[in-house]
């Protein structure tokens, strides 16, 4: 694998994470539990889709095969999407959406802090621009985890169930392979192993304030980075890609 191929793959993986999570959050539009949260969740969705746009633009440039960001976002098959499994999981109740966001935001925040110093100028610039958004997402989801966990008996039980369910997707966030190895050597990618302990410390601090906890042991799933997804992604893509598949090249 050449450095260029690795860079394309790396940027594409990050772009897919943000697009798919952004799309999931957009499904809340008009369905939020209260007006204020409806707006908050769709704001997060817009931030993430905005980050995805920049990442796809850069991926297309690196690939240099005449595809643009829309081709990458809308015209690939399920197996070609390289997002982690966590982000494609269904919204469930509001608590589950918040937990999924919480687990992702803490990771993304530590990742972008490091990518701001990437030897690749474009990645560093995107990380620097996105970090403020991510820090706000982190604050939003962490505060909700605390309030739901330490709220009523029902909110506690529901959100604990989501923490237990979604904990099986945590390890995949730190997944690394040849793509990462090539770019870590160049100072372009961040070595996820270097902040894994910090990640667990950070989420455990919030969870314990919320009177919640990660399960002792949980079977860990992965495959997303290789394009092997859970059953949910296909349905999501059917909706995401509908317009471009039905009216190819449509603009508005």
């Amino acid at each position, binding site marked *: 694998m050449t450095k260029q191929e690795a860079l394309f793959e790396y940027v594409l993986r990050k772009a897919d994470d943000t697009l798919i999570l952004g799309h999931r959050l957009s499904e809340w539009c008009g369905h939020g539990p*209260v*007006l*204020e*949260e409806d*707006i*908050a969740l769709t*704001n997060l969705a817009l931030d993430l889709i905005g980050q995805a746009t920049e990442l796809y633009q850069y991926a297309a440039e690196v690939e240099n095969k005449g595809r643009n960001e829309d081709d990458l976002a809308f015209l690939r098959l399920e197996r070609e999407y390289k997002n982690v499994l966590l982000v494609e999981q269904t919204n469930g109740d509001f608590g589950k959406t918040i937990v999924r966001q919480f687990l992702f935001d803490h990771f993304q925040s530590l990742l972008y802090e490091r990518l701001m110093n990437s030897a690749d100028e474009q990645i560093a610039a995107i990380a620097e621009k996105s970090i403020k958004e991510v820090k*706000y997402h982190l*604050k*939003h989801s962490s*505060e909700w985890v605390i*309030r739901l966990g330490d709220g009523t008996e*029902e909110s506690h039980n529901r959100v604990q169930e989501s923490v237990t369910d979604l904990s099986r997707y945590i390890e995949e966030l730190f997944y690394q392979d040849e793509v990462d190895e090539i770019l870590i050597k160049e100072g372009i990618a961040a070595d996820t192993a270097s902040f894994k302990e910090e990640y667990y410390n950070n989420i455990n601090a919030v969870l314990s304030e919320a009177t919640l906890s990660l399960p002792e042991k949980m079977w860990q799933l992965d495959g997303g980075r290789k394009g092997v997804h859970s059953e949910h992604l296909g349905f999501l893509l059917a909706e995401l890609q509908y317009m471009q598949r039905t009216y190819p090249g449509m603009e508005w």
Partner: protein
Amino acid sequence: MSKKEWPLWEVFIRSKQGLSHKHAGSLRAADAEMAINNARDVYTRRSEGVSIWVVESANVVASDPSEAGPLFEPANSKAYRHPTFYDVPDGVSHM
């Protein structure tokens, strides 16, 4: 599930340094910190502000509309209280 609503909060936004906070609207939130978060999302999405205040609406004491006469009308006929007899030099903004 209880149908009890979250308390109402009044939101004040300072649009830039040097200006005062202005009432922007109201919203519901479970507590003060969430009210700030919600205000950020609802009222400052288009960079309308540099600072936010939230006050629980229950804590606002308002004048009584039926007393509007005694409170405000005596000022109507006193034009000399308005600083309109001066020329404001060019370049002085926010007057």
